[in-house]
């Protein structure tokens, strides 16, 4: 195989790579989508909310419109520095370095867990969902925004090779396996690509409720 052929392949690959990155680019996650996702929750003033993978703090900003008690966790100092510029490093929003799959919080200490634009980078999304479920109090809710799976088979295969994409059926499966109930989804996006993101809200079973065991 010649060098040119390799380069041609590389260009082709890059062309699709850029396309995928455009699809998950944070700029397509806009204020309207954020407001729609927030409307799927019922956050009350005083609720303690965790933003997993808060990054630059775009969602954090929306959460603050509902409650003052917002906690942001991320693994990247580069991303968090943007958030610190917005909210202050030692202000009302509390920041932590941490891992979504191994959360550094005690059981049931949050009313709600939110995560947008982060699940696609989690090596083990079900482990992270189980952790989100653990730190939310019984009966509380978890909301996850991720990239909806592209329909085209070729594009879908390329997308799968890059990072996690999922559709409603796959989200149902992941959330059920992590032990959630009342799982609902909404696809959203800007007008030119209205189903680019999938937002899932699910409930942590209330205390005393028997969790449904999935057949292995």
């Amino acid at each position, binding site marked *: 195989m010649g060098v040119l052929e390799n380069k041609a392949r590389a260009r082709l690959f890059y062309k699709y790579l850029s396309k995928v990155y455009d699809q998950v680019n944070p700029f397509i996650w806009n204020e309207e989508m954020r407001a729609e996702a927030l409307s799927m929750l019922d956050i009350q003033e005083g609720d303690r909310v965790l933003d997993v993978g808060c990054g630059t703090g775009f969602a954090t900003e929306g959460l603050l419109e509902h409650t003052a008690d917002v906690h942001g966790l991320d693994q990247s100092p580069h991303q*968090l520095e943007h958030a610190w510029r917005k909210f202050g490093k030692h202000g009302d929003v509390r*920041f932590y370095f941490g*891992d979504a799959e191994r959360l*550094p919080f005690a059981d049931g200490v949050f009313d709600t867990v939110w995560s947008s634009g982060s699940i696609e980078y989690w090596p083990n999304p079900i482990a992270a969902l189980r952790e989100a479920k653990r730190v939310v109090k019984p009966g509380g809710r978890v909301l996850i925004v991720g990239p909806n799976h592209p329909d085209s088979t070729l594009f879908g295969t390329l997308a799968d090779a890059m990072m996690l994409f999922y559709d409603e059926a796959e989200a149902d499966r992941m959330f059920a396996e992590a032990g959630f109930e009342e799982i609902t989804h909404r696809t959203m996006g800007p007008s030119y690509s209205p189903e680019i993101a999938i937002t899932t809200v699910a409930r942590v079973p209330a205390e005393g409720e028997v969790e449904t065991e999935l057949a292995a």
Partner: protein
Amino acid sequence: MNESLLEIVCCPLDKHDLDLEVIQRTDEEIAEGRLVCTECGEEYPIEDGIPNLLPPDMRDG
């Protein structure tokens, strides 16, 4: 990190409580210090007020 947050944080590895060792503080805000797991002894630094609760294998990544 506000001292009151000790009630909600835990060791990311074994989920046990953390002990606070203060190096520098202003009232209830801990600027520099360490959080030490009461079970496994793993230490998590607090630097410029931010607790680094990444598991050890992810630090400085």
